[in-house]
């Protein structure tokens, strides 16, 4: 391993600009002559819009234009789309209600977009918004799943009179029923996967621009996938054809899924730029982010596990109701379906699985992918079930898991996925060792001496990453392919630019991708630059989410590098007057086998461009190659996290005393960055388990719409983490990478809840396990003890 190659903990090249305040985020970008947009949002969860009177507001200082849904419709701008078609059990398509970027006649959640006010300054736009007179006829709201499914519930979209988006299922019902019929023991659980707000620290922002001379639109935006944004804005929404629309996602301050989607505000800014003849800028404030960024999770689940007399899992039956909010966001339909149910087998041999999912409209913000997207929900179901099953049988939860682990690969689960490789026991062993599980009893006694309760919880998670083989996702309803592209441009002096369709918003691609290039081409890291986030520079790409940029994005780069080396050999053969078959490439030099004749990579690059030595015809000048890489399978990162908590029964405060994570990510490019991803994921998972919860009251008002009300994990809520790794290289891509971005967020919630319930001695606690809830649960434990 070289100091900068694959496996080296290289310090990040992008950091210099961030630590000196020189990052360029969307809100840092200003265009000459720009105007500012402010969105007037619905204060009601559900209402008909009777009239919008803008006359007074239009006359106010600085106001340039006030635009509504009628203006969008007049310009034939289409609605926002959901790009994944799910079919009902009966084969009929899901019921997708219209999703105009600015409301047309009706608002469906608090924060829904009613009008945009464009003014010289942001303050003027905001002031004018208060003078827009909207007459609403309020309607009853259905702010949660139960109210939306009640008989006589208010109808949110006419296409779905029962507020049901789809009734979907996966697996073999008959085989699962048969498994339960012969079960010796059935474990049952009711689970709530709490609703979360993603909260990347950089709020969304957009600057739309239109060049009347060329007819080209430019949108600067906080996007994880600028090409997908351009595709949707062009092909579906109809802003402009793709060659007339440039989307730039500069430095982006975190995404966690919430910046995948194509939202109303960005759409309106780019459209309005032409309409008002000025660049139009919008930056979300945090309250708007809470109201209108797509939320995550929000499942209600009943799950059952069938066991034989030896404690082997025979079957799994899961019924989930998923809240998708008031409109279908870009990929929302895939989250509680194909990103969820196929992971319900966990790390276990389960012969039969049947899962039913009802997706529901409610008068709340749209719900879509948030770090892990479906996989944390699945992991919560299976890891809570195995833990409780072990406890009910009086078995050690680690042994129970080990007994049921998949040990033979490849392994076909009953729910689509074919696990290619893994070694689940290795991660469990290592985690138990690092967590010093064998002395847990001593620590528990010690806590008891201090009047505290101590518990230990496992989570043996698996996820499907490296998203995704295009044909596979196409057959499941995806409207796009999920390959990735790369272009490797070698300059005449031998420096390299890599243009990638992946997008870095914290992942450190500028470093890790350069490490791959440095490793393969034998050139120093500082001779490589990574270009991303601009549709005018990078031809196409699917962006970054689903832990795909290593497994898919870097595989594309690796393939393009292979082509560069192959062409370099041809050039070197001419330059060294040898036959191509005799040229070797190693450590940055092309050499003629068995001789001391060689040329450095940079020298061959120069030869490629000056082209003096070619005989013409056969070889084109230049050194630049592209590749589109489509993976052959998902990847299956897996691991074991162990959480140990101490609870103060008097206050209900849960303190995480130690956290151990052992993950198998296959080949790791930069362990420092990978560990950082694990830390961040765990923090978000702990946030879900202990602190975070988006709450709408029954009128559909979001009562957790600021950092005063929505508890973000802070430094003193978390411990330091012990992170270890095992490795079974992934056979499904040329680099052996599995992906690491979501693991922590997937693994953590059940580890925390399993630890808390272990301490409590009963299973009756839901997320977030706030001090109040834990205190109440402690009272229940004490009553239970007293009764025994």
């Amino acid at each position, binding site marked *: 391993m070289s100091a900068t190659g694959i496996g080296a903990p290289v310090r990040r090249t992008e950091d210099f600009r961030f630590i000196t305040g020189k990052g360029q985020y969307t809100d*840092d970008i200003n265009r000459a002559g720009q105007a500012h947009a402010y969105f007037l949002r619905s204060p009601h969860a559900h209402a008909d819009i009777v009239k919008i009177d803008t006359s007074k507001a239009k006359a106010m200082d600085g106001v340039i234009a006030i635009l509504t849904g009628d203006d969008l419709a007049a310009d034939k701008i289409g609605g926002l789309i959901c790009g994944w078609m799910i079919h009902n059990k009966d084969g009929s398509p899901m019921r997708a209600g219209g999703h105009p970027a600015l409301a047309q006649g009706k608002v469906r959640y608090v924060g829904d977009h009613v009008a945009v006010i464009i003014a010289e300054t942001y303050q003027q736009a905001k002031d004018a918004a208060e003078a827009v007179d909207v007459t609403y006829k309020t309607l009853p709201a259905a702010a949660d799943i139960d109210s939306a499914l009640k008989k006589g519930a208010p109808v949110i979209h006419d296409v779905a009179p029962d507020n049901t988006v789809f009734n979907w299922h996966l697996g073999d019902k008959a085989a699962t029923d048969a498994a339960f019929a012969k079960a010796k023991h059935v474990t049952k659980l009711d689970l709530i996967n709490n609703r979360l707000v993603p*909260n*990347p*620290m950089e709020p969304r922002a957009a600057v739309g621009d239109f060049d009347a001379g060329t007819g080209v639109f430019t949108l600067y935006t906080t996007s994880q996938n600028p090409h997908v944004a351009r595709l949707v804005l062009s092909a579906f929404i109809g802003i402009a054809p793709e060659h007339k629309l440039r989307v730039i996602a500069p430095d982006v301050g*975190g995404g966690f899924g919430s910046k995948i989607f194509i939202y109303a505000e960005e759409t309106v800014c780019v459209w309005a730029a032409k309409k008002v003849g000025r660049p139009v800028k919008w930056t979300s404030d945090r309250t708007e982010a809470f109201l209108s960024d797509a939320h995550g999770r929000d499942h209600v689940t009943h799950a059952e596990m069938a066991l034989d007399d030896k404690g082997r899992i025979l079957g799994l039956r899961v019924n989930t109701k998923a809240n998708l909010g008031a409109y279908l966001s870009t990929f929302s339909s895939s989250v509680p379906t194909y990103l969820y149910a196929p992971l319900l087998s966990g790390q276990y041999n389960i012969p039969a699985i049947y899962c039913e999912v009802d997706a529901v409209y409610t008068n709340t913000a749209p719900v879509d992918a948030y770090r892990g997207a479906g996989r944390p929900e699945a992991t919560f179901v299976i890891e809570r079930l195995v833990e409780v099953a072990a406890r009910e049988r009086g078995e050690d939860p680690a042994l129970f898991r080990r007994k049921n682990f998949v040990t033979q690969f490849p392994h076909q689960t009953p729910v689509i996925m074919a696990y290619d490789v893994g070694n689940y026991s290795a991660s469990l062993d290592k985690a138990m060792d690092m967590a010093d599980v064998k002395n847990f009893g001593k620590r528990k006694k010690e806590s008891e001496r201090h009047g505290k309760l101590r518990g230990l919880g496992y989570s043996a998670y698996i996820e499907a990453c490296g998203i995704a083989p295009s044909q596979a996702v196409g057959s499941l309803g995806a409207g796009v392919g999920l390959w990735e592209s790369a272009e490797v441009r070698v300059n005449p002096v031998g420096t390299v630019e890599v243009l990638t369709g992946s997008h870095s918003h*914290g992942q450190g691609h500028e470093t890790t991708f350069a490490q791959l290039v440095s490793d393969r081409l034998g050139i120093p890291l500082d001779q490589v630059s990574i270009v991303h986030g601009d549709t005018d520079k990078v031809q196409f790409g699917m962006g970054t989410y689903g832990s795909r940029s290593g497994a898919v994005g870097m595989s594309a780069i690796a393939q393009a590098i292979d082509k560069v080396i192959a062409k370099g050999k041809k050039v070197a053969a001419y330059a060294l007057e040898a036959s191509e078959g005799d040229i070797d490439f190693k450590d940055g030099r092309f050499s003629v086998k068995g001789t001391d004749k060689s040329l450095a990579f940079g020298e061959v690059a120069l030869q490629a461009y000056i082209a003096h030595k070619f005989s013409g015809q056969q070889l084109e000048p230049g050194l630049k190659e592209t590749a589109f890489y489509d993976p052959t399978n998902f990847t299956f990162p897996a691991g074991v996290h162990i959480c140990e908590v101490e609870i103060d029964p008097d206050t209900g405060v849960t303190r995480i005393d130690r956290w151990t994570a052992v993950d198998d990510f296959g080949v790791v490019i930069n362990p420092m960055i990978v560990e950082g991803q694990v830390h961040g994921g765990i*923090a978000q998972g702990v946030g879900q388990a202990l602190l975070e919860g988006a709450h709408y009251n029954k009128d559909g008002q979001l009562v957790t719409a*600021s950092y005063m009300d929505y508890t973000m994990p802070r*430094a003193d809520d978390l411990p*330091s983490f012990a992170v270890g790794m095992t490795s079974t290289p992934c056979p499904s891509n040329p680099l052996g990478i599995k992906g690491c971005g979501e693991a922590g967020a997937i693994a953590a919630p059940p580890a925390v809840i399993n630890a808390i319930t272990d301490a409590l001695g009963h299973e009756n606690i839901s997320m977030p396990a706030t001090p109040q809830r834990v205190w109440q649960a402690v009272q229940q434990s004490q009553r239970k003890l007293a009764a025994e």
Partner: protein
Amino acid sequence: MASVTMTVNGKTVTATIDPRTLLSSFLREHLRLTGTHVGCDTSQCGACVVHVDGRAIKSCTALAVSLDGAHVTTIEGLASDGHLHPMQEAFREHHGLQCGFCTPGMIMSAVDIVNRKGAMLDEHTIREELEGNICRCTGYHNIVKAVAAGAQAMAATKVAAE
């Protein structure tokens, strides 16, 4: 409109501004010092922390006009003579940042913690002192390491300078 004069990163600036302009907007929009970030509207996240007269404040919570005559240091002014501040170095060395959005505020807060509490900071103190700065990316693990190391490096540079 009101006139305000202050020293920002060693340069005197005078401007006529809307009296409701926050220091964060003044820095970002009038002076184009966009390293100071705005991550919330309730004074909770700390992305906007700068130093005013040597002490950390949340610039989203101060009116620029109230700081007439003040000395303000932003993240752009922390490095001197082309040398990174030891705390900046520590964040890079210990991977204390991912997306970088919270980073300017984190670093400015971290320097302030050392100024107030000295160089020997234990993990508990660092975590408590970082209460006012939210990071969504790192889980704080490496930020805590960076602050501890940066504190020691600050002390060492001071000793070296004396």
